[in-house]
């Protein structure tokens, strides 16, 4: 697979480290709702099709990125820096 790093351009997936599904939203830091934290940390849908996932370009620029990837075809539809996704997605 080739993963498009928003900083470095397309690089082989071996340069990246996988973290997981990017969609679960982290509860607010001061939240003490155990259920919400459990949902955030442990429950995943394992969907077929396009999902967003987190990778770090550990073998390159070290950026944390969010990749829009199809789990069935491996087609990659784009990527963005995790900090940009955080600003746009977690208001």
């Amino acid at each position, binding site marked *: *697979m080739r993963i498009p790093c928003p900083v470095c351009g397309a690089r082989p997936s071996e340069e990246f480290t996988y*973290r997981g599904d990017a969609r679960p939203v982290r509860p607010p*830091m001061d939240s003490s709702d*155990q259920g919400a934290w459990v949902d955030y*940390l442990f429950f995943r849908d394992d969907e077929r099709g396009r999902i967003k996932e987190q990778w770090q370009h550990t073998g390159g620029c070290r950026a*944390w990125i969010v990749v829009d990837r199809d789990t069935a*075809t491996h087609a990659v539809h784009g990527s963005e820096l995790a900090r940009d996704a955080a600003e746009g997605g977690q208001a």
Partner: protein
Amino acid sequence: MRDLSDTETAPRLTQGGRIDRSRPLTFTFDGRTLTGFAGDTLASALLANGIHLAGRSFKVHRPRGLVGHRENEPNALMRLGTGDRLTPNLPATLVELTDGLVAESQNRWPSLKYDLQAASGLLKPMFPAGFYYKTFMWPAAFWEKLYEPAIRRAAGLGRATTAPDPDRYERGFKHCDLLVVGAGPAGLTAALWAGRAGLHVILADQDSELGGSLLTERSTIDGEPASLWVDRVAGELARLDTVEVMPRTSVFGYYDHNILGAVERLPTAEHGARERYWRIEAGRVTLAAGALERPIPFPDNDRPGIMLASAVRAYLNRWAVRTGTRAVVFANNDDGFSTARDLSQAGIAVTLVDSRADAELPRALTGLEVTLHRGRTIVGSKGRHRVSAVTLDDGTRLPCDLVAVAGGWNPVVNLHSQTGARPRWDSIRDCFVPGQPRQNESSVGACAGRFTTAEAIQDGAHAAVEAIRALGKPVPELDLPVPEDPPAGRGEALWYVGGRDSHTFLDPQHDVTVADVKLAHREGYRSVEHMKRYTTLGMATDQGRFGNVNGMAVMAEARGLSVAEVGTTTFRPPYTPVSVGALAGRKRQRTFMPLRRSPLHDWAADRGAIFAEAGLWQRSRAFPQAGESLREAAFRETTQTRTHVGICDVSTLGKIDIQGPDAPELLNRVYTNGWKRLAVGRARYGLMLREDGHVMDDGTTSCLAEGHYHMTTTTGQAPKVMSHLEWCLQALWPELDVQVQSVTDQWAGLAVAGPNSRALLQRLLPGVDLSNAAFPFMGVGRYALAGGVPLRLFRISFSGELAYEVNVPADYGPALADKLLELGEDLGAIPYGLEALDVMRIEKGHVTAGELDGRTTAADLGMAGLMSSKKDFIGRVLAQRPGMADPSRPRLVGLQCADGDERIRAGSHLLPTGTQTTIDFDEGWVSSATWSPTFGRHIALGFLKNGGERMGEVVRAVDLVRGHDVQVEVVSPHFYDPEGTRQRG
């Protein structure tokens, strides 16, 4: 007929072909010394020496001869080399002949001609389709002991050597705008025009020469022999800067995102690698891998001398080898004519058996002595180690020593299929052709079912234009050559000749016959995927390249369907065999993993250090003196450090530079304890949790200046902590004004421990007040040595002694260590290693990787007090889950032998006394253990249920693996100086 002279009957022609007769090469085959020429393959050289018999079949050991000239050869599998350079299972057709080559046939005993297992023709009934599934089903226990060894001995494909491979292999990466796979007329044309337009082109072909089918057929281009055109194009390609021509390179795998795997075989050279695995990222791919001829299976079609017609022509035209003296050509299409023409012109008597009732000899054959039997098929053959005659369906018996079979063509759709695309059946050409592409690729020429040279050249040019256009470059005016092929027309479908199906071979290597496929059908294994696994058709080393399509047609007929409806099996990489050495490259033995060296690596090695692997690091375990064992050295080093002073390389600890006004806030969020009040010049111990509440890592972080911190991590977790901090700052809290960077490699770290450590450091830093008042426990200072070399001093202790950690830029690490030993000679300064470090930290009750194993909580470690209740931090909420907060969880305890002095082993389970030794009574484990030279007994750290309340209790430490069962007393984990007066003194 007149008698023929020796030169007229010798297999090798005296002229013609693309071999270099001025460069003879000597090789051996099964111990016989033979000669070939530069340009030969092992197969052509064997045939030039009159050798057809090249192997025996996998199951029934029938004699088998050379059949093909490419990767479709199912029979002639060779073991090459001697000693530790042995490679089994190579098709002789893909082995370039080299001087001194040593080849052996396989799968025969005691010799190729007299194979004892074939002596009884009774073997075949023992191996019907599905025999694995039904013959040896019961009792299951017999499989390992009886059936499998027997089958393996009977089968025995070539054996590899068990000696280490002495050759080198490499891996590498390539990038191109256009990858062209196959250098026949289509591939050459595509590469040429794309290269002329300035595209980065890679042209790869498994052959040693460019040209593909043009090397083996008597085509002309622009009125000249095609080989002249090939030479001209090859010359121009070599001159084009942006074109890379890669002969001897097999593209074997087509992966996601247009990444392809290829293996390049390299000529043997003193300094070179033997093979190179390339990972090619291609903008576009042109598949021009050609087509492979298929057989017409007929009863007894597996005798040596029965070959594919394309191979017969190739051996004749390219390698100047007559594969027989009296030939029968059996065809269902016009390729029979060109075969008959080429053979007849080489002085070989030819009889043409054409299955088509309306076959007419074309004008090209007028004047040649070719007898035609039209509308006929071969129904049997005779001959022991070589075919001697065939019988036609009208009873005609034709003596011969060569049968050339032309059954039509199968485009090489394998790479296309590997992308996930589905090849489709072309009912006009009677073959699978590429379907809708799923990646940026196209198939051209014979690879797309367009079999003429004219079509190949047009397709290749078109592929180049597409690639040029896709990059927005100007499309050149095309000027294509005009080729002329031997006569070709449509053939008829003839998938096999019925009759004795159990002797009609579809897969000669695995002995799969038409009868087997029909049996699979009768027993319900009707989908091609089931049929493949039930009969093993296509599972031999040629991967079905020989007879798979015929087998599918047999199944289609049995089911009353068309081949299109039956479909084809899925092709998977690799297309041709790839040696494991090439895939592994340099990743073996010492270079299997990279090696991380501390700045004090050579320094320690010079002092006789014994090293241990710690992740990728090499760390010094101890510095044995003459006659000392590792243990003795470690205990000496421990005692000397506790009584005098020792220095230890701790450079491998992770170090992270943290800068910015929000640094205390970041520390507060990633550590469980509070950081807002840490003053400049002070260090603090910190505990980091994962989101799930388990302990991730520990270490000290020091405040170097306002907004500037120096974090340390454990050696093992350093990369993980670094990524974690980057995650926090980039993804979770980009608003924090903090920057982090690993400085692990920048600083050499030396622990200086022991009662004399202050005196020693005072000599290094004479102008600095190191008194306890001025530089207390957990103090931090920054100084400059002579020449401005910066030095960071941390008063932290892992050993429990008065101790410091000194950091200098890594380049100065060895000199600093030398200087400390020199300055401390009269203070008793010695170097100590990881073992003494471990002994001392166990004595002190400090935790390390054995305790921080990813399953323990802060409370388990006795550090519940570090969990701040005044702030939020990562892992806070989930650490409070009932199972995590359960007070009866195993807690960190110290353990010592209850009586006597038996060794306690790390990894032992802790059980109460007086119970059975079962998991039901398991109450914890031993995480670290050592002999304590300080206390003169064995001690350990472990985790025990309700451990905090069980001080003084005796439990058992049981190690069932190593057979140990020891009574141990539960004590505080802080064996040594529990009040900390030494480290604070």
